[in-house]
């Protein structure tokens, strides 16, 4: 398992980025954690529906997303808010769905990020089609898809990997192995030693990296993105990390794991090691960090307020996006609903 920055903040290999960039990556991770924690408290206040926290996975998401060009495709999941945000998905839209309405599914026109996948597995195949189409159209865009360890059990993982391998499509398969598929530990999901080695079955390279080491993640992701862009085909990256929190706010990990596990993992915290590294290079201080955190909390509060305001309770909200132009049946049903609502007044 490739590691560059040890949990204690020492380099065991060559840093893939300069201090400037390291600060940027760290800043993004600080943002991600503050965003995640704030979201948890908003959910407790009842302002968000179920939320899937990613604490502990900040380095994986930030390191991977940082390797993309602004217009590359990102096809990720309900747990990948940090990566989606880095690729340009506005905060308020990330919140919209969780405040209970659909407006969040439409990113700005220049942002090539699909709405987060709620079904496990199906979205990886989409990334293959996206990247393939870009190649057909002579564009240099590639696609990255993010998924969990559990998603590799689905048949669609197999079909996505196999198509990408056969047609040499420029896709980066980025797996965040956080140790759990809800209550199922990695060891009971598959009998393969690593997830990375599954790449052999598809004739593509597979690499396993310390998912809590943003340097290792960034290095592997950048190499895979380069391969994809150069037409050298797909890569599977397994970022070994840990889901420190519950599966979602509706989940109670106490039912299936003892708190020590998570405790161990906090020792391998993805932020702390970079903080040490930066402070040793005099690029970190307390108040800068708290500023970033406070700023994030403000942004999140603005974003969720905006998200809540985006919703217009209106039949058109339901009917008007089924087809480019609504069918007669949909018009009839919409009228039926509108009539009912008027009676209500």
């Amino acid at each position, binding site marked *: 398992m490739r590691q560059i920055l040890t949990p204690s903040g020492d380099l065991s290999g060559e840093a893939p980025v300069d201090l400037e960039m390291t600060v940027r990556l760290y800043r993004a991770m600080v943002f991600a954690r503050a965003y995640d924690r704030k979201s948890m408290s908003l959910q407790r206040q009842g302002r968000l*529906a179920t939320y899937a926290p990613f604490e502990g996975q900040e380095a994986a998401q930030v390191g991977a997303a940082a390797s993309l060009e602004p217009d590359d495709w990102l096809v990720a999941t309900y747990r990948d808010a940090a990566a989606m945000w880095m690729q340009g998905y506005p905060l308020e839209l990330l919140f919209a769905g969780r405040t*209970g309405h659909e407006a969040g599914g439409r990113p700005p026109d220049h942002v090539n990020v699909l709405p987060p996948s*709620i079904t*496990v597995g199906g979205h990886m195949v989409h990334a293959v089609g996206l990247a393939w189409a870009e190649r057909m159209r002579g564009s240099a865009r590639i696609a990255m898809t993010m998924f969990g360890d559990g998603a590799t059990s689905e048949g669609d993982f197999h079909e996505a990997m196999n198509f990408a391998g056969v047609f040499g499509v420029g896709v980066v398969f980025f797996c965040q192995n956080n140790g759990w598929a809800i209550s199922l530990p990695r060891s009971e999901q598959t009998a393969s030693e690593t997830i990375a080695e599954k790449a052999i079955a598809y004739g593509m390279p597979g690499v396993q990296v310390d998912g809590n080491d943003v340097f290792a993640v960034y290095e592997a992701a950048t190499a895979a993105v380069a391969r994809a862009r150069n037409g050298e085909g797909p890569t599977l990256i397994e970022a070994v990390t840990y889901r420190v929190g519950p599966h979602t706010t509706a989940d109670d990990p106490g039912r299936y794991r003892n708190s020590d596990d998570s405790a161990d993992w906090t020792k391998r915290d993805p932020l702390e090691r970079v903080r040490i590294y930066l402070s040793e290079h005099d690029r970190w201080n307390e108040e800068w960090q708290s500023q970033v955190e406070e700023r994030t909390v403000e942004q999140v509060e603005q974003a969720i307020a905006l998200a809540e305001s985006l919703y217009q309770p209106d039949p058109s909200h339901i009917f008007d996006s089924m087809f480019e132009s609504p069918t007669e049946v949909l018009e009839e049903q919409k009228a039926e609903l509108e009539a009912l609502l008027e009676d209500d007044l």
Partner: protein
Amino acid sequence: MAEITIAQALNAGLGNCLDEWDEAIIMGEDVGRTGGVFRITDGLRERFGADRVIDTPVAESGIVGVGFGMAVAGMRPILEMQFMGFSYPAFDQVINHVARIRHRSRHRFTAPLVIRIPYGGGIGAAEHHSESAEAIYAHTPGLKVVVPSRPHDAKGLLLSAVEDPDPVIFLEPIRLYRSVKEEVSEESFRVPIGSAAVEREGSDVSLISYGAMMRECRLAAEQLEGEGVSVELIDLRTLVPLDSATIIESVEKTGRAVVVTESPRTAGFASEVAALISERALYSLQAPIKRVTGWDTVFPLKRGESLYLPSVRRVVSAIRGTLED
């Protein structure tokens, strides 16, 4: 007898099943350690062991296909799909194999398994978590399709389903899991598959529904009673095989029918019921058959749910409509 919810009745019923049949096993995502996302299998792994309450990888086609193989070899697998929207990857196994092995093998091989699927909206869930695709299963020859709406039926139908020599799709109304309570015996008992319940006798209109929508129908019937409208309320309980006699008898008596489902309208199960009535009871009809259903759209998220799900108001005004017609 204690008053319990549908969730508790199902949990108790699953316990009875594992007690009663050594061949019965439970298999699905998170059904063991956590007792399932709705806790329907809560405590069963502790009680019956990890060999009989099996946590599987996230692979619906695998769960159904492996369960199918177990059933052919003489087991009685009780499979759980975490939500109906996640049962689609298993359609090929259900349609091409589970529903057909008896026919394919002229009774030599059978698949006496149960697929439990929480279905329906109303809990403000994320996309794919509120589906009501029962019509797809009902349209597939070789399957039985059961949908309880109350604790007693939930337990009794579950035991019948596991005992049944053929595959049963067992749909569980998420919205009613914990909202309906009634006394349910701790004993093992059966509610027969294939018989509808006339929950409330009436003379003016036949109100026909099943599953989660029974709640709206019950409230609508009560409200209308106050207005002097006598509603005959039928809980189908089983979609396949359908208890057509009960439906036709009722419509012949009332001359009017309103069918309520929360699934999209086009080619939904309400259409089947309407078609049946128009074929067998046309001359008794005094007004058009009304379908009160979800719209032909994607099921909306939390804040749009009330616009999508048939409400008591919609049911009431549909009934008023048929009476005016």
